[in-house]
């Protein structure tokens, strides 16, 4: 969904990729991990398709670390002000212990749906990185290779994405109290 405008096209691309994988498998030389190889077929097809729909944008333009404003992992107002003599920069509004809540609630379907929604709401570059890393279990190195990202940028995207998903969960748990 990063390279094409809508879900129907994305599904088309997924089908083309599947076919491309079936056709290409006999020529697969094992130089890259199989999943990286499949991912390349997928992104190449998506980019080609995206160009045809004239919507293709290179990954890097989704995210320019220089151009983006800083995104604190936790809003500044959660901490004491820097000039607060009692606790400068320390938690003013404290995080709660999630492991004290009943497991049924923590692992409930609705909790997972909240996580899913939070991920879907992320900017595309953050969504891509967090999906590959935390849902699909790719290593940082695999993600850097597949998305042509530097290690640092991969980490920044992951950091911002995880912080937002945590925040979404936190407000969901707070609401339900």
């Amino acid at each position: 969904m990063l390279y094409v405008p809508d879900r129907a096209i994305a599904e088309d691309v997924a089908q083309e990729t599947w076919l491309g994988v079936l056709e290409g498998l006999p020529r697969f030389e094992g130089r890259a991990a199989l999943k990286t190889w499949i991912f390349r077929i997928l992104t190449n097809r998506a980019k080609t398709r995206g160009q045809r729909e004239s919507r293709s944008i290179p990954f890097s333009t989704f995210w320019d670390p220089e151009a983006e404003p800083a995104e604190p992992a936790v809003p500044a107002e959660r901490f004491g002000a820097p000039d607060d003599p009692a606790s400068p920069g320390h938690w003013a509004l404290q995080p709660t212990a999630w492991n004290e809540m009943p497991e049924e609630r923590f692992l409930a379907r609705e909790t997972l749906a909240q996580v899913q929604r939070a991920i879907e709401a992320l900017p595309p570059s953050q969504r891509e990185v967090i999906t590959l890393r935390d849902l699909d279990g790719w290593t940082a190195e695999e993600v850097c290779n597949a998305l042509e990202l530097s290690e640092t940028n991969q980490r920044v995207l992951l950091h911002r994405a995880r912080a937002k998903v945590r925040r979404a969960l936190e407000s969901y748990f707070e609401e339900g109290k």
Partner: protein
Amino acid sequence: MGVTALTCRELVELVTDYLEGSLPPTERARFESHLEGCDNCRRYLDQMRQTIHLMGCLSEESLEPQVKTDLLKIFRDWKKR
């Protein structure tokens, strides 16, 4: 030169670097010594670990039935060739 202690606000920005194992040793030591004395930041780090754990539970997101049928059809047609 004395090492200044991290504030909580600084620590939360280093959590990913910490979990990724990419903090230099001195930074890692600062991070861990702050954690030792700060229940709130330990709780924050736990929350982050739990968030990651929950995302791992999502990975088996199932395909919509129609999509699955389409993909299987492509596979069967391809095999016939």
